């Protein structure tokens, strides 16, 4: 791993793509403040792969819904390229946990929908070829004419990723995309996403509750506790990362230990955490 590559993965000198400034959020229709956020701040640099790690109910999906523009913060602001996020837009593509494909469209049809929404001026033939190439990039070329109901969970999420890529946005938001997929397939999908996001130079925010998933994918891991950010951990492992090669290395073990203690709220190991907020 060269110095240049190291600098790139860390992205310290790159400009800030997304700024989350003192953001708070409440669910107004519920008496309990379940999943709410209080004064959360975070800067995300261009090309960074951020994993937001937390137990269910800590507000990580809420944070993503604010970034996607589907919800508006109660106070504070979210900026992208210095401009406030006002609502959903094609500059931020979203991959949901499941059930977000359009069931009346084929695999290719779903991807074409993304291409059409991206607003690029393309002929029918160019669009079709582009859709084929995205379908191929997620390894579904042979299933491109199938409908979502004819696909397995893993294949559906591949389509969702392809559709999100087809929007050609600079930012990709993924909300526990592989949470419902069985572990063996999940690993394949993680490697696919890691590869594609690097190829297409995306700024990625990836929500997960899986520590290994976070270590495998992220440049920085943001651990959340209910309502706020608990700690941020830099991942100094070289890309591309392979699961089998990672486990056992010193950096991996150290990070894993840190994350487990942060995740399970153990005070004695807190000192090890990279940055504590």
């Amino acid at each position, binding site marked *: 791993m060269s110095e240049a590559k190291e600098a790139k993965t860390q992205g310290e000198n790159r400009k800030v793509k997304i700024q989350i400034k003192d953001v708070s959020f409440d669910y107004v229709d519920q008496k309990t403040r379940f999943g709410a956020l209080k004064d959360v701040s975070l800067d995300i640099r261009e090309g960074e792969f951020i994993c937001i790690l937390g137990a269910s109910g800590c507000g990580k999906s809420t944070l993503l819904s604010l970034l996607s523009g*589907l919800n508006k913060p109660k106070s504070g602001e979210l900026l992208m390229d210095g401009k406030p996020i006002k609502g959903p837009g094609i500059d931020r593509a979203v991959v949901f946990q499941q*059930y*977000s494909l*359009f069931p009346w*469209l084929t695999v290719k049809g779903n991807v074409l929908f993304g291409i059409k*929404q991206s607003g690029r001026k393309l002929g029918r033939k160019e669009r079709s070829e582009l859709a084929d190439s995205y379908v191929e990039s997620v390894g579904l070329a042979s299933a491109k004419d199938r409908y*979502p109901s004819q696909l397995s969970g893993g294949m559906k999420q591949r389509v969702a990723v392809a559709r999100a890529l087809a929007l050609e946005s600079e930012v990709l938001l993924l909300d526990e995309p592989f949470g419902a997929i069985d572990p063996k397939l999940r690993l394949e999908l993680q490697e696919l996403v890691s590869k594609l996001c690097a190829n297409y130079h995306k700024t990625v925010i990836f929500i997960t509750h899986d520590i290994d998933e976070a270590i495998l994918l992220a440049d920085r891991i943001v651990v959340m506790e209910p309502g706020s950010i608990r700690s941020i951990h830099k991942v100094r492992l070289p890309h591309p990362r392979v699961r089998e090669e990672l486990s056992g290395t010193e950096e991996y073990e150290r990070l894993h230990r840190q994350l487990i203690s942060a995740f399970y709220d153990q005070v004695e190991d807190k000192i090890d955490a990279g940055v504590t907020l």
Partner: protein
Amino acid sequence: MKSFFRLERGMYLELFLATALMIVDVILTLTFPYFTTHKAYYDSGAYIVVLLVSYLIYVSYLFWAKKKSTNDVAVVLYGFFLLWEVAYKLGWIHNDLLLPSPEGLFHVFVEKAPEISKDVWGSIQLLFWGFLLAATLGTLLGLLAGWIPRVREVLLPISNVITLIPPLMFSAYLIMILSTFRQAAIAVIFFAVFWPTFQGTVIRVGQIDRQIIEAARTMGVGTIGMLWKVIFPYCLPGIIGSISKSLRGAFMCLSGAEMLGINLGIGYFTEKYKSFADYRCVLAGIVTVGVITTVIDLAVNKAQRAIIKWEK
């Protein structure tokens, strides 16, 4: 792969039974025309054609679908016809004015062929235009109301009241105030179809998976795109699925309206011969309505399967 000409063993017995019932009926009809005490005698040609054609459809469907229930239906059907025929021939039915023989009933379709075909065509045309208008408008307004809460809150309470009133009650009034029978008939169908279609569409829009809508919103889909490119295709199977039900309702109302005073259509045909006390023709009219609704039903189901290739 199963051969087309093979059936399960038990099915042959019932096929034989149904065939025997049908053949005995045909023989009875042909050979005992004069063994009755009734004066009226009708040519049995039409009845025999009905028996043979239905038999042909039954056997080909049996071999195609290979379902036991097909046999059961055939046995019941031919058993019923045979019983009717026997009852008639043995003189159990005394008044053939009120209950004609099966050959008498089906002979109406030969005697009154031009009249019936004209009336059926008339009914279908009315049905087509009324239905097209009501279903299109009902769906469009339903999509709008389903998506925009403010529109829904105005229209849904109104439709809740109106759909509770039997559409036939409007008919008498509509027939009176509208200048032509054609307009009146279309208006009746419109009332019978519009509100249920509207309500069904609103409900279907409400049941859309939130993830689908959110996914569309994050892809920058606006209001019109949402209605046309997301909500409409998502609801289309449900909309088509409800067509056969609302068509049946429409046909029921149309027949009713025709009997109430519209001077064309198959309902009018039935009503007219009722006043002439020609119950043979009345029964023929009823049979015709049954046949038309069945054909419409089959056609719609077929179309649905052809159009909708996906499932949720």
